[in-house]
């Protein structure tokens, strides 16, 4: 092969690899994308049962109940609230009136959480939660904690 052709074949194989990677990635994305909703959005447009999504908001005051390893609480955006059930150990920063993001699916109106996330900073408000609260119309700038 002449140098020009070699370079061309190199570039072509690079593009091919990149294309294949993008194709594989997009397929994987379609199957594994997890959407984020606030309680109001969930009530307005309930996701299909068994469809995984993330639910974010504040842990409603006085809603946390423990039964063995099972924990029930409600996630609120101050307008609406969704009951959540979770088996496992809650993250260190899980507290009432604090921001929380849970991943799981709806079953008969109850959100069955596979994981519960709270971030590692006591003043931290997950951005999605802040946005969800804003959407519900009850958010003051600077009231982040």
């Amino acid at each position, binding site marked *: *092969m002449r*140098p020009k052709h*070699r*370079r061309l074949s*190199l570039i072509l*194989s*690079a593009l091919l*690899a*990149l294309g*294949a*990677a*993008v194709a*594989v*990635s997009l*397929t*994987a*994305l379609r*199957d*594994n*994308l*997890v*959407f*984020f*909703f606030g309680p109001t959005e969930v009530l307005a447009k309930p996701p299909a049962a068994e469809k995984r999504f*993330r639910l974010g908001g504040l842990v409603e005051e006085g809603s946390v109940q*423990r*039964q*063995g*390893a099972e924990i029930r609480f409600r996630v609120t955006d101050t307008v609406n609230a969704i009951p959540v059930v979770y*088996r*496992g*150990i*809650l993250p*260190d*920063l899980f507290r009432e009136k604090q921001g929380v993001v849970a*991943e799981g699916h709806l079953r008969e109106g109850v959100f069955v959480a596979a994981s519960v996330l709270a*971030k*590692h*900073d*006591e003043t931290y408000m*997950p*951005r*999605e939660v802040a*946005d969800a609260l804003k959407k519900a119309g009850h958010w003051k700038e600077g009231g982040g904690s």
Partner: protein
Amino acid sequence: MIAELGHFALILALGVALAQASLPLWGAARGDRGLMAFAGSAALTQFLLVALAYGALTQAFLGSDFSVINVATNSHSQKPLLYKITGVWGNHEGSLLLWALILALFGAGVAAFGANLPPSLKARVLAVQAMIALGFLAFILFTSNPFQRIDPPPADGNGLNPLLQDPGLAFHPPFLYLGYVGFSIAFAFAIAALIEGRVDPAWARWVRPWTLAAWSFLTVGIALGSWWAYYELGWGGYWFWDPVENASLMPWLAGTALLHSATVVEKREALKAWTVLLAILTFSLSLLGTFLVRSGVLTSVHAFATDPARGLFILAFLAVTVGGSLALFAARAEALVARSWFAALSREGALVLNNLLLGAMAATVLLGTLYPLFLDALTGDKVSVGPPFFHAALAPSFLPLAIALGFGPLLAWKRGDLPAVTRRLGVALGVALAVALITLALADRHAALGAIGLGLVAWALTTPLVELAERLRLFRAPLAESWARLRILPRAAWGMSLAHFGVGLMAMGVVASEAWQTERIQALRPGDAVAVGPYKFDFKGARELDGPNYLALRGHFEVTRDGRPVAVMEPETRRYPVPPMTTTEAAIRPRLTEDLYAVVGEPDGEGGFATRLYHKPLVSWIWLGALVMATGGALSLSDRRHRVGAPVRARRAAQAATGD
């Protein structure tokens, strides 16, 4: 006073960087030796000034000078000395200053040890370095000044987040930055080469050791972060595909590719334009990583600041750096002509395959990390891309990469002989198949996954050994000859084999711990027992304890195997008053073959406690593998041939003898 001194030194450093970024370039264009030589002294001066600023900030932390805002918000007079020192970079402003310090240190390194570089190349490299420094110093001074005062000063500081008060994490950022910033040298050399219009083996001999060093540091940095997440976060996981973790993985993948393609430039004078492009991309990904972490566009553990001005500044800097260097590349890449050719089936061909696969992996991680951002910006939909995506999207690239890792080193340069190589790798192939079949027969769970995984691991672990044996002509030549070959085997060869072996070790840890771990989550009352893998955990209860600056809840487990006592494990949950914070201290019994991992949580109000117990086979091999990879890098770096300025020709004979 000291803080003002540091502030002043930083402003001076900015001035020096401005001069260093412009005058030497002009000098190099005009062939003015005086102006070119100025670059060296400017780089050294800039380093001294930034070091002075850094020292001043450290002094403010050591002396608990709470009139400095940064110290007041991030330190505390009662904090242990170690965390006062590491607290300097445990915050946004200080960590950027550390970035600038390491950048200046590397620039000074080029200035001090670059005597044998062509003067114009050296001047241009240092000028490009200074441009990066200019961006970072301006960023610090205008948006993130660590020396700002507060009046009146508070009586005591806020303290450092207890999660960050940990030796594993304390040294995670410096290693990461040594890696990120180390790639800036490769970048500066790439840009300088584009300006010069020339890339030769001497260029690659300079770029390779810097890339190798940066890569080794980054490997250690990522491993430290992952290890910390494993023992400190209490989830038993070691990699969460968190955007910030991805931010460090992308430059690592690109840097690994760069490491391999620079070899081709050095040995064969081919793939020049590609290597230059990779150097640009690797550093761009390092910058992107810094941007993602520091701007707060992604919600993450690490996002210190969410100040839009900062994000905008870094984004603009990123756009100028990446856009400018890619435009320069487009304009000048034509000049970089290869001096040799190679067949598809050759060492070069294998390295190209390595580059394509690593590049595809880096692109995949980039897509998964940025996709939520794009979707949010375009449609307002909030999504997250989690581990399932990365596992599904990366596996198709990793499998061929692991296979190629075995073949590549045995292929000859220019034109390889696959049948001959396959014959020589027969042993490794046999071992891999045997391991796969045995796994398939014995595994009680995940047999297929385990068989493929362990087969590949066996392949990755045996091929470097076969490769070494080949170099030594072990069992083919008399032992004395093998011994003689062993004595002259270059350290770079050892380094490569060791690094490839490390990949196998790490893959082993990942496969075994993913396929065969046991997880038990339940509420336990004192007296309850749970079987976890082959072990039995007896929960004896939990009690409250006073720590030095926290209140702890300590669980007590007695672990037995077939009735024989194995260990007592006491995980804790700690509550800190300043700043108010709870941390999980998992109890871990690490062994080479398996880890036992126990976490105790809050009481459930009915006399029980939430507990999480794990049995994780071979999980420590993940970090062991990373360490072995980095050691391979360091060993290779210590090779005389990599030492800049070492006589190269003298080694050629030895190379020829070992078939290198």
